[in-house]
């Protein structure tokens, strides 16, 4: 009906953006409304019925309640966490015998056998040793992600549930993790680049529930995901577990979505400066009888991004052509992305822990305001993207035999991305048209008008299987296969300038096997792993078909040792491989030339970390220092290949990096938490001789250019349960971030005061949240970059100034 209305309005079946936008908007509103109505009704309907309950507390021997510890009912998908009073509860349990497990880094696993009786509440309390709980509540990680923490991999875990009420920008949040730096080119929806312990770009891989996200496009990327959807974010530094089956070279980020097994509805909306809006609705419903489960989430982010910019290159030409500095509002930087995901199937049944069919879709539309620096001003260029992915996933514990767990995922996705550069008008920062040409704004090769569309078709399959031989020995096997075909088209451009006008094919297989050896209480855990990386790539050139293939091995070790109740040590080392991407190997058909002899990047990574904790009176102090080492060779860089400005990827660089990071957390009871971290990384050029001339390089051992090396974050959080009312709570927080100035080019070259720099940035954010009726209704207010500082992550690309936002959230759980 809605579609027909649109067709009628447009007077034809029109697939133009304007028609589709109206269509999509109507559909979106209808879908949100139905989802809200449906899930609310289901949640309320399920509140009654015959079943049993399980409740309990987790406390220290002195009676201190422990917050945010995870309790799992073995053999089911159900987990929950303790609240401020150390309490947890499972409702609507089918009567019967269960084993529940409380797990933590320091005390391993504590289990209890319980019996749930119909119509009654079974009590199960845990008492753990004094001090040991501290190891589970470090940094901003809270206590979730126990499986990760029980291994020896260097990892930080961001507990998203603790900050679900905040108006969180994921990139902003991740930049507060020690050793992680996210560099953005602008405001919401701008390009971004993650760096973990000095390795950046394609060396860092993203996963969602263990599935690689690299083929999902930018519309379904980390920064667009609402915090409400996420349970935790695992940040691996250096070695990554085999269950993340990607070719990460220096680290990986795994987004774990909510594992809440109860039926629930979570809806939020925020509005802020620059007309920035974020809306998200997530929900789940499960029939207790047959385990039929439906899940859905919809989220939308938009912003005008019309913040003010000034300074170098924000200038207009005076009468004599000389530059006149101006303060200008960005005027072609609007951003809008919408994503939706629906899954249906069965969970918690005898033959499957989960079998879910899913459909994920997203779209994105944004303006392109600037080029490589703010000297390049674009007034009409834009970028659009559409992504759709049907998928199926299956998992089962004790599959065929006890101790064998199987997880399967399979998907096919289609990603279509279009860069629209068809305007002939050239703008300055005053939004005046200063020139009308016959070419486009962005230019590129030929400076022609262009509407380039890439279409990627990817199928992705993952098998993860773990087998627990005994309490001391277990294996994990992971296999990921992905194959992508890329094709480009452009109705405006000259044929030779169209990237990927002949299709490219790239397939990757990453296989991993890990063996874990641990003691019964998991106070020491050793993980040995080996990975195989394999790829095939083909491209069709004008005259021939070019193909290339490579096979490489990686291996590593990760160990965790709890030396005492207050000291934990983790160490990991690996040889990691990053396979070349398709466009690195095969070029893009015009500006990037083919490089079939390109070899994978190799890195030897090592991390050693410790955690010391001390309790005194009602206070807890935790100190986590760690050091890392990276030795990377065959680094793939784009090098100029000819006078037409065309380039070719080459294995030309080696780097060596060492670094130290430290984090301190002070907690007083449950009302005060102070956290601070500092990272110093010393990444150096390790290429002694010039690869072309053989001459000794004068930048040998120089600090890597355009790479931040000293950064820190601090956060103070005050929380008050039972604020104004017994079921209400509130908190205020202050977050500060610091990045030391660094050079765009090699630090050794040029006079220090005559070099291009990315200036020091020091920003402060403050915010407050207030929750009513046990977190059902929530409101938060935040001011980011309070002092309206000019902030740059990249050379001459300014980020937004002060941003004020308000967020409301409604959460209903069965």
């Amino acid at each position, binding site marked *: 009906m809605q579609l027909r209305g649109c067709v009628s309005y447009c007077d034809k079946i029109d697939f133009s953006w304007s028609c589709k936008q109206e269509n999509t908007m109507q559909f979106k509103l209808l879908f949100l409304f139905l989802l809200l109505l449906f899930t609310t009704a289901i949640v309320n309907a399920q509140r009654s019925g015959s079943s049993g309950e399980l409740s309990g507390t987790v406390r220290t021997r002195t009676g201190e309640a422990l917050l945010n510890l995870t309790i799992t009912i073995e053999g089911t998908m159900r987990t929950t966490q303790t609240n401020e009073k150390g309490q947890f509860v499972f409702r609507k349990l089918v009567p019967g015998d269960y084993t529940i497990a409380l797990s933590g880094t320091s005390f391993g696993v504590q289990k209890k056998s319980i019996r749930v009786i119909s119509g009654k509440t079974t009590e199960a309390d845990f008492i753990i040793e004094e001090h040991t709980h501290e190891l589970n509540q470090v940094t901003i990680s809270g206590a979730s992600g126990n499986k990760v923490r029980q291994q020896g991999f260097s990892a930080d875990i961001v507990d998203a549930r603790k900050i679900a009420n905040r108006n969180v920008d994921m990139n902003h949040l991740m930049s507060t993790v020690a050793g992680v730096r996210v560099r953005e080119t602008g405001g919401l929806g701008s390009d971004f680049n993650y760096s973990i312990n000095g390795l950046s770009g394609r060396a860092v891989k993203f996963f969602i529930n263990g599935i690689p996200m690299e083929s999902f496009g930018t519309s379904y990327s980390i920064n667009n995901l609402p915090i409400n959807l996420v349970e935790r974010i695992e940040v691996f530094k250096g070695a990554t577990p085999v269950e993340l089956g990607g070719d990460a070279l220096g680290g990986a980020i795994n987004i774990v979505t909510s594992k809440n097994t109860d039926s629930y509805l979570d809806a939020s909306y925020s509005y802020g400066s620059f007309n920035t809006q974020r809306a998200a609705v997530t929900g789940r419903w499960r029939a207790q009888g047959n385990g039929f489960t439906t899940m859905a989430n919809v989220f939308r982010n938009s912003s005008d991004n019309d913040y003010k910019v000034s300074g170098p290159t924000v200038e207009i030409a005076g009468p004599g052509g000389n530059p006149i500095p101006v303060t200008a509002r960005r005027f072609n930087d609007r951003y809008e992305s919408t994503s939706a995901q629906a899954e249906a199937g069965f969970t918690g049944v005898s033959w499957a822990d989960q079998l879910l069919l899913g459909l994920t879709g997203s779209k994105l539309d944004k303006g392109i305001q600037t080029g490589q620096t703010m000297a390049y001003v674009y007034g009409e260029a834009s970028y659009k993207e559409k992504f759709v992915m049907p998928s199926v996933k299956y998992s089962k514990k004790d599959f065929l035999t006890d101790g064998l767990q199987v997880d399967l995922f399979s998907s096919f996705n289609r990603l279509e991305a279009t860069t629209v550069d068809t305007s002939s008008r050239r703008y300055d920062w005053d939004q005046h048209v200063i020139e009308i040409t016959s070419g486009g704004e962005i230019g590129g090769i030929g400076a022609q008008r262009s509407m380039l569309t890439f279409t990627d078709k990817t199928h992705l399959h993952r098998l993860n299987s773990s087998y627990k031989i005994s309490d001391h020995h277990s294996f994990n096997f992971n296999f990921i296969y992905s194959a992508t075909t890329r094709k480009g088209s452009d109705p405006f451009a000259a044929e030779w300038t169209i990237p990927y006008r002949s299709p490219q094919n790239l397939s990757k297989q990453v296989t991993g096997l890990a063996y874990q050896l641990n003691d019964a209480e998991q106070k020491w855990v050793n993980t040995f792993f080996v990975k195989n990386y394999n790829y095939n790539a083909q491209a069709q050139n004008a005259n021939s078909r070019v193909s290339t293939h490579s096979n490489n091995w990686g291996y590593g070790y990760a160990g965790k040792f709890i030396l005492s109740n207050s000291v934990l040590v983790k160490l990991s080392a690996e040889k990691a491989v990053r396979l070349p991407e398709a466009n690195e190997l095969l070029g893009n058909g015009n500006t990037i030339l083919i490089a079939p002899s390109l070899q994978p990047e190799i890195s030897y990574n090592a991390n050693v970390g410790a955690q*010391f904790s001390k309790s005194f009176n009602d206070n807890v102090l935790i100190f986590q220092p760690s050091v890392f080492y990276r030795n990377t060779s065959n680094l793939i860089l784009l090098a100029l290949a000819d*006078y037409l400005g065309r380039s070719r990827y080459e294995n030309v660089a080696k780097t060596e990096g060492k670094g130290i990071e430290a984090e301190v957390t002070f907690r007083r009871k449950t009302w005060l938490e102070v956290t601070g971290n500092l990272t110093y990384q010393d990444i150096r050029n390790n290429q002694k001789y010039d690869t072309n001339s053989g001459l000794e390089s004068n*930048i040998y051992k120089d600090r890597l250019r355009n790479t931040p090396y000293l950064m820190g974050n601090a956060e103070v959080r005050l929380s008050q349960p039972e604020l104004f009312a017994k079921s209400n709570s509130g908190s205020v927080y202050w977050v500060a971030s610091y990045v030391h100035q660094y050079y765009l080019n090699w630090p050794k070259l040029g006079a220090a005061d005559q070099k291009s720099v990315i200036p020091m940035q020091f920003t402060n954010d403050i915010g407050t949240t207030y929750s009513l009726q046990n977190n059902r209704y929530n409101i938060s207010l935040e001011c980011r970059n309070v002092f309206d500082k000019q902030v740059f992550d990249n050379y001459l690309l300014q980020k937004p100034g002060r941003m004020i936002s308000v967020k409301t959230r409604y959460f209903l759980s069965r």
Partner: protein
Amino acid sequence: MFNFIKTTLKATAIVAVISMQSCSNKDNVQPLPESSQYFTIVSQSNGSEYLASTASLTTGKLSFVGNGIETTAARYLYHNEYVYLMNTATKKFIQYKMSADGKITENASILTSGVTPNYFTSINLINDNTLLVLGMENNHLGNAGWARIKLPEFTVIDKGTFKLPYDINLNVASDIGKGYVDNGKFIAGSNRYVLDPGKPAGESLEGSYALVYDYPSFANMKLIKSSATTGNVGHTYLESLLSDEEGNHYFVVSAGKYWGGNGGKSGVLRINKGAAEFDTDYFFDVTTPVGKNACLTSLSYIANGVAFGAVQYEDLMTQLSDRYKPVAQVVKLDLKNKTAVAMNSPLSAVGQFRSPLVFNNKYYTGLVTENGTNIYEFDPAGDANAFKKGLQLDGNDIFPNLIAPHPAN
């Protein structure tokens, strides 16, 4: 507890000390030795570009480690005490002042946006007080712009647009190169080529071409042709145009397979003083006497008909990117007698001949060899061995693009 805090403070102190050490090279600028004559060198090095001064071109060493103004440049020119660079990262045409004491300072700049299409691709010194800059769209449809810049004030006097030849029927387009003003005409070299949608650059159209416009109106465009060879006349960013004492003008015509043409004879074409046509009696074939399929790429005039320039030996090349290998040779040409001498100096990569220097009747250029980069001095009075290896440019990946003299001290 006390020990714990002590350990934490110690770790913090160590980090602070390390970080302070990393910032300690702020004042690491090389002091200049005393000299009565300084020179500015602009050179690429490891992904960026640096302007630094030196007390001598014939001795010593110049390093960009902790030394020089960082920039990004695409076009290079010096005139009197100023260096002019086209910075493509900031889209600014920048004027640097060279002082007698060896200092270099950024003096003024002009935004290229809105002045000409694209950026200033062709920069031409018309007289002591006027620069004529040209910019053109790269989409081969013939749209171009011009602007005159007053020197040394460095402001745009006036600007306008003009057309380049574009034959839609033959699908032939034209680029514009370096030019000069004589007898009320602006005459610039050109490259005419067939547009081929399947290739990055189509074949050069038979013949060599120049464009003639009324100056300063840029009206009455006229295409003039020489049939002596087929190639690119007066390339924009190399030294490819010179004038002799009699006021005659010489264009480099590059006809190489890997530079400018289709693999024919490269050399020099002449337009006589006051004329607006090629001198049909004059073509200096450089390829034949020098051999190895030498393609002439640049030329700088000394005096009395003698000029120095560079050829790339295309027999040593299999692809365009071989220009970054040692395939180029310095040549001495006698423009009057049409004789060419390949100097016995080392072979070099090609790129560094963008703006060499003629100073006190000698020719100075950088040579990038397997043993490093040096400035070489060439003496027109001598034979093929009349050259000296001079100033060493320290380090790897050094490609000097401009050499300019400061005012005498």
